[in-house]
């Protein structure tokens, strides 16, 4: 246990560093809290990010805290993951590619009794990284135009504390408390007539969100699950500096002036999921989630929000959990998801669809594994003032089992 705490402390120090460096650019990320990451653990990215009903018996299931109720005794799980994303942006006229690389999560899970377990996870929640160059916009009440440059950076982090409790051998419940915190900065330059005005804005976010979940094992192959996320408020405070420069010289209009900012609201969400094992080799998972964004009644300064539907389905195959042949132990997975999008721009929803493939390489004779998955997806579309993002995502997650650790230490 002593060693575990040592690793926790060390890892969080390390992750703070990595978080600060993570970058992901998207033109959609100037809205709301930015573009939300999917930073799923273990093999979940390979099965289309589905898996509300998967138990945390041999891995940490970040989708449903109730899964921790089924965690095996005498294991300490440590997860770390990263992602590389190749994105192509395309609109009617242009096409451009960008590559980004980011840290995706760091997590621990450990049982605290025969019937319950805790997990702690740190991951990036969203990124607000975007750039706009030489955008011409109309000046109100005139025929003239001004030019705008914007550089956005920063994002929110997510710190999760989850607890799962097995009520009976077939039923578990769980709770996750999520702290969202972070800073975004946005530097705007307005070229109006013969003047340049620079507005540098820093927004600080913090909020708490609660998730409750449950999993019910109907029989040894079928599990049902549900989660509820309660609506929550992300407090926003903003300071900005404004400086102008024109033919009459330079002046500072405001320096780090606190300005009114509308708080951000996360909606009520519910999800249901199913997991079914066939022939002891195949595992089918399917989830549906709905997010009630419309009811959040956000200020239009964050964009227009609409209710979002999210479907995910996945299938994994593993020939045998234990075998003398290493190749038989590999778990192959395939999945897909569709998300109708919560953002409406110019009356068009920004939807997102992706297909995924994955493979898990077990390490030694415990729950340690390396999970490699690839997904291809599209977000938005060409035309209607939207941009189409084609992305190829490679996720690499390392799951380490505490037993494995101990062995290494003894070496």
């Amino acid at each position: 246990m002593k060693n575990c705490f040592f690793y926790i402390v060390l890892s969080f120090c390390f992750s703070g560093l990595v978080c600060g460096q993570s970058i992901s650019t998207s033109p959609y990320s100037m809205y709301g809290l930015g573009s939300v990451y999917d930073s799923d653990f273990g093999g979940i990215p390979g099965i289309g990010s589905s898996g509300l009903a998967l138990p945390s018996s041999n891995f940490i299931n970040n989708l449903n805290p109730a899964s921790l109720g089924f965690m095996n005794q005498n294991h300490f799980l440590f997860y770390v993951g990263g992602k590389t994303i190749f994105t192509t942006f395309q609109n009617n006229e242009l096409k451009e590619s960008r590559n980004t690389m980011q840290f995706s999560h760091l997590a621990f899970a450990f049982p605290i009794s025969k019937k319950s377990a805790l997990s702690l996870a740190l991951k990036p929640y969203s990124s607000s990284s975007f750039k706009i160059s030489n955008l011409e916009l109309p000046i109100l009440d005139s025929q003239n135009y001004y030019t705008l440059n914007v550089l956005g950076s920063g994002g929110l982090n997510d710190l999760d504390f989850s607890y799962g409790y097995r009520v009976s051998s077939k039923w578990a419940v769980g709770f996750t408390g999520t702290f969202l915190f972070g800073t975004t900065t946005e530097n705007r330059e307005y070229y109006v007539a013969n003047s340049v005005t620079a507005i540098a804005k820093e927004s600080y976010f913090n909020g708490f969100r609660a998730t409750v979940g449950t999993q019910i094992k109907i029989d040894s192959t079928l599990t049902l699950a549900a989660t509820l996320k309660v609506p929550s408020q992300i407090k926003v405070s903003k300071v900005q500096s404004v400086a102008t420069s024109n033919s009459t010289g330079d002046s500072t209009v405001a320096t780090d002036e606190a300005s009114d900012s509308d708080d951000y609201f996360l909606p009520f969400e519910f999800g249901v999921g199913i997991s079914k094992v066939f022939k002891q080799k195949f595992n089918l998972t399917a989830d549906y989630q709905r997010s009630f964004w419309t009811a959040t009644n956000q200020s239009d300064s964050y964009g227009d929000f609409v209710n979002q539907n999210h479907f995910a389905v996945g299938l994994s195959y593993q020939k045998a959990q234990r075998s003398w042949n290493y190749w038989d132990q590999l778990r192959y997975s395939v999945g897909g998801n569709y998300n109708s999008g919560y953002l409406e721009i110019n009356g068009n929803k920004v939807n997102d669809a992706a297909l995924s493939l994955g493979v898990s390489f077990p390490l030694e004779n415990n729950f340690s594994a390396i999970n490699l998955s690839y997904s291809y997806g599209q977000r938005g579309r060409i035309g209607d003032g939207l941009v189409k993002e084609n992305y190829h995502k490679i996720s690499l997650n390392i799951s380490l089992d505490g037993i494995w650790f101990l062995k290494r230490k003894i070496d």
Partner: protein
Amino acid sequence: MYKIILLLLLVGVFAACETVADAGVFVVGSDYLSVNNKVIQIDTLTANMATINFDSLVTSEQNRILIGNYDDPIFGRLKSVSYFQLSNSVGDYSVGNTSASDTEYLNYVYDSIALVLKYDDYYFGDTTKVQTIDVHRILEKVKPANSEDSRFYNNSSLAYDSKSLATYSYKPRPTEKDSIHVRLDDAFGEALFLRLKNREITNFDEFTEYLKGMVLVPNSTNSSNIVGFNLSSELRVYYSKYQSDAEESIVKSFTIADATKQYNAISSDKTGTLIQDLPISSSSLSSNLSGNKGFIQSGSGVACRIDFPTLKEMNYIAENGTVVDAVLKIKPVKNSYSDAYPLPDSLQVYVADNLNRISGTLNDSKDIPIYAVLSQKKDEFNENVYYALPLGGFLQKELLKQSDSRKGLILTIPNYNKEINRVVLGDQNLYDNKMELQIFYLTY
């Protein structure tokens, strides 16, 4: 083994990826960008124009003798009278050789006396017309009426002898000739010469006691131009030394060595003009009462004032907002200028309180004065002739100011104290040549 390979792969994948520089060409929902920060153009803010009259304009120490009078079709008759004190630049008030004996002194004989006025190239009006000036002796000491103040103003006056020492008519040739030679009354010249010769005058005090100064007064019979002369103009006493058969001509010169003792009294008769009823200097005449025009005439102290009475209402546009740029285009009134009355290249701008008390020039953030600059001298339809005055900084500061006191702008012509130029400007309501104020406002 697999572990190691995969870990190497992980490192390899992450290391291989470099973020490509984002060119920033993809934007979704540009309307959204306009929501938080609005850029608004405002063309309708009221700018009031008025004409004011500075009753006292410092005209001493301007290094110019300004003399003449002319009738302006718009501004009425303008007249400049120039007063100055004379002295010998090296303090030598002797005639001939100071060591000469009395008998030698008898050999010095007065010839003539003249005022040599040297053109300084400045003129205004029609120099093809004859101008007549009278030269008089000043009868009181050349010093300001108010002992607290060492300066003379355009309305200062000193008593002078009604008897003229000379009446001189000439057609000014300011750019072709160097000077004019005004022969003065010989009785005056001889009397001065004798006092110098007899050593009754040996120093500056004795000289200025006898000849306190001179004043050049334009004769009202002719009224066509005003001409500038510089301070190296001289009073010359010509005399000769007779010895044996030889005759030697000698000149004794007196100049305006002290520029503070020279000033021009510039007065105008605006009877019959649109601005004949200009109020006292702390008040102003609205352009509504002067044909929707504002007037500037240097020398006489007529200036144009511009105010923005409703500026603070811009604070209601948004909780946080600022003027990012503004330009005031002030247009000279059609037919008010011509080759004979050319437009000045720029206008000087001062900031003043509501009693026309000037706090200084309008400056940029580096304290360099801002001028209203003429776009072009003339064009066919006079559409694009205007003075452009950038006002971004001024309006921004006025808007941010907490107090209710409002500052106005006063426009004059550069060299306001030593020239005669004039301009007529249209206000916001004049049918042609409207003044235009364009403001760019940004909310944040």
